């Protein structure tokens, strides 16, 4: 058989498969089109980072600029600042957030069912509020003149603090806000993992005379470890992306605070929509996407090495 004939028969076979599977193809087609338009089409737009874009000539008409956009970006102080903020803050969120959620999850598992329902409802609630609303809540606490925190300080003889004017408070404020909104949700995930553990493990352990603490250490924690790993890994893979709403609405986009609150996402947004510097925005945007991909692949590789079952792919 010649090469040409072989290719043609292979094509024919694919065509036959397509025809026989055409109903399934049709069923998935609308979704495929949407995914293509909103995820794959922009991939071609990555070239924007290498171009000197002007709106008159459009994406394809603008002149190439090589790596100029990247040079500008990495030579500015912004690159270091936003990289540091993004990694440090998200890193803290992952460590502290996971730790607190596991603790709360374990406590919920030790509580009686009626109490669990009550606490679960309260702790889960902030997760349902948008960051805009949470922004209102933090504003009530931190408003320099009327704010609850400053009133409390005054009550105890302290002086008012200008929260929105001093960047050094913000890593802590952001971490607390993150915990306030998210711990309940993650704790429930761990809680559901915990209550699924077979009761006979605990019965056997208590017959052997193990205390509650020993049971938690030797049964509960090891058995939800895969769940913890999975969630941590997902978070590490996304560490270069931030919850934009939080970093935008909680510090109220105050320029004074950028030193500690500006992250990749807010920076890219600002360069694009506020400053209108397309070169900078696209270079930063591509930097974020590429590092993000590398991080996802690396975490997956590491987890696969450590325990194959927990890897994502």
């Amino acid at each position, binding site marked *: 058989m010649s090469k040409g004939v072989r290719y043609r028969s292979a094509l024919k076979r694919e065509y036959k498969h397509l025809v026989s599977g055409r109903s399934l193809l049709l069923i998935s087609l609308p*979704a495929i089109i949407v995914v293509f338009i909103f995820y794959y089409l922009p991939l071609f737009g990555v070239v924007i980072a290498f171009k000197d874009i002007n709106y008159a000539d459009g994406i394809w008409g603008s002149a190439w600029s090589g790596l100029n956009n990247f040079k500008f970006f990495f030579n500015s102080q912004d690159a270091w600042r936003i990289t540091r903020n993004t990694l440090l803050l998200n890193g803290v969120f992952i460590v502290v957030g996971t730790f607190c959620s596991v603790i709360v999850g374990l406590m919920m598992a030790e509580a009686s069912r009626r109490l669990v329902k009550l606490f679960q409802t*309260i702790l889960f609630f902030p997760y349902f509020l948008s960051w805009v609303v949470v922004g209102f809540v933090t504003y009530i606490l931190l408003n320099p003149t009327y704010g609850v925190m400053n009133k409390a300080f005054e009550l105890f003889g302290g002086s008012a603090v200008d929260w929105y004017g001093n960047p050094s408070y913000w890593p802590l404020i952001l971490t607390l806000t993150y915990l306030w909104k998210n711990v309940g949700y993650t704790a429930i995930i761990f809680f*559901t993992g915990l209550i699924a553990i077979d009761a006979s493990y605990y019965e056997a352990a208590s017959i052997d005379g193990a205390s509650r603490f020993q049971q938690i250490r030797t049964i509960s924690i090891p058995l939800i470890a895969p769940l913890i790993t999975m969630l941590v890994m997902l978070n590490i893979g996304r560490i270069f992306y931030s919850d934009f709403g939080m970093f935008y609405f909680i510090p*109220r986009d105050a320029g004074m605070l950028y030193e500690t609150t500006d992250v990749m996402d807010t920076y890219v947004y600002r360069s694009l929509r506020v400053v209108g510097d397309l070169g900078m925005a696209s270079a930063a945007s591509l930097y974020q996407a590429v590092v993000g991909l590398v991080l996802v*692949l690396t975490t997956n590789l590491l987890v696969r090495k450590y325990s194959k079952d927990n890897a994502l792919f």
Partner: protein
Amino acid sequence: MQATNAGRPGGTPIAIVLTLSLLSILIIFPLLYVVSVSLSYDADISKHGYQLIPERVTLTAYSYLLQNPKLLLQSYFITIVVTALGTALSLLLTSSIAYVMTRKDYRYSQATTFFVFFTLLFNAGLVPSYMIMTNVLHLQDTIGALILPYGVSAWFAMLMKGFMQGLPFEIIESAKIDGATEFGIFVRMILPLSKPALATIGLFYALAFWNDWWLAMLYIQNEKLIPLQFFLNRIMTNIEFLTKNVQAGISVDLSAIPTESSRMAIAILAAGPMLFAFPFFQKYLVKGLTVGAVKG
């Protein structure tokens, strides 16, 4: 299964009750402040600051906002339309592609899975997406801009696939023998059987659409298309936006407006429907999470 840990004999240790109660207080108190400020007079606020219990209770802020609620109602309307249409469309798209991904007898099921999964690994980032939306698709200032970008979430599609894989394949075979079309099988058998997954993922989609301001911030200029959360943000940053509630043309005395309390009142009005939907949402989301966590 539910009874294993929760409800262990001897009741709940007191330390745990105390800790969880403390956490609950930390969560509830800031929210109570928002309610309280919305019910206060601005004069009292400027005298005493924000307080947990208002000096004098008043509905001034609410009556001010509802005097001419055109913009508020408009943004409510947009959010409701976006949430309803968006959730329905996203569920349909997500479940259809997830179903095709589970059909092992379909030659391209794996390719379809990878096609969706890849979007979790790498995306072009904000700038190219923005350019495509505005320069190529010209979706800015349309309802589509508030819905379509969230149409298929790869994450939910994978979750849905996980659920559908648990359905017995034999029913599809037997339906085929009985002469059902693929489309008929999907609509009349798979979708009804997937109700629990559809409910859970639908709630997540609804929550995302209801709380979204991001797409509006990027793509909406037209004031008639501003959704609730974005409207809320404009009020927060720019109190003059509030005065637009008062009839245009009449000059407004800014000092006469209960600015502090109105801000919080509008936050309550925006979060309000969520408050009522919350118990319902919570029940199903926890159930969905339970299924997901136990499976994974």
